[in-house]
């Protein structure tokens, strides 16, 4: 799958080097230049409320920050690592224990300096979200990204429509 979809490959390689995402078990479900879905399996280790078994908001924050940040990589014309400026979350309903959680992210505006993203966290039905999030990322330029990191994430992919100028 990742061979004919460079977005999937880039997303998977990016997530695979983020240590804490490995600790949580976050994986890429779907990726394109328009949208991205990450999956987080349920784990007793993620619980924030021992009375209800509901996972902690912090786990969801990490999932959302990662989903939006990975979406930024796929939305930009060249590989560019962008730090998060801010993140705003509404926790609409408690996540159901023992079920995986998904984050569907999109970058709805890419400007010269800032990338605006939003993300919906759900458990199978996007109309019944667990959380909604908006996050902004600062563009610091592709030259600011360490080359070895760029190599890991970009892999053998070439970025479409860019390459030749």
């Amino acid at each position: 799958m990742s061979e004919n979809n460079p977005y999937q490959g880039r997303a998977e390689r990016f997530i695979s080097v983020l240590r804490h995402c490995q600790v949580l078990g976050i994986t890429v479900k779907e990726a394109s230049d328009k949208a991205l879905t990450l999956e987080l399996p349920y784990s007793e280790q993620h619980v924030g409320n021992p009375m209800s078994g509901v996972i902690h908001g912090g786990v969801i924050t990490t999932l959302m920050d990662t989903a939006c940040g990975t979406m930024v990589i796929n939305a930009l014309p060249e590989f560019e690592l962008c730090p998060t400026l801010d993140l705003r979350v509404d926790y609409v309903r408690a996540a159901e224990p023992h079920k995986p959680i998904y984050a569907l992210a999109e970058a709805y505006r890419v400007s010269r300096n800032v990338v605006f993203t939003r993300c919906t966290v759900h458990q199978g039905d996007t109309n019944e979200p667990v959380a909604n999030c908006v996050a902004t990322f600062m563009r610091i330029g592709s030259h600011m990204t360490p080359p070895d990191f760029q190599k890991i994430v970009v892999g053998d992919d070439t970025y479409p429509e860019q390459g030749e100028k």
Partner: protein
Amino acid sequence: MTDFTDILKTAHQTRDYDPVVGAIPYANLIGLEFQRFGNDVIFKLPNNEDNVGNPILPAVHGGVVGGFMELSAALHLLMMLDTPAMPKIVDFSLDYLRAARGGKDTFAECQVIRQGSRVANVIINAWQNKRDEAVATARAHFLLAP
């Protein structure tokens, strides 16, 4: 896991909240600690490779910084208001000011800005080197009653 209510009740009586933190799996996962100084509480996220996001910088994953701040705020409310259950997060607004470097401890302190009977507004500051050089600031609303 109903005995969390008892752990909480005992903690409110003894003012020892270590067992509460020990009973929260996510707190153990990221390694949250705290120390009380009279009525003040400082939360600590010790340096831990498992919390790193970007391995090249290296930096603590932004989500972990957020999760640490959110959990600190909930625990702060538990300690200050003797709530009978875990406060429930309603919304969370987080500003990242500088990278939280890997290889360093991160700290947080909370301030309850307004507290009605059902909702509390908490401001959270997180730093590494100096208290006035925050790595992130956040604002959160919590529901106090279950």
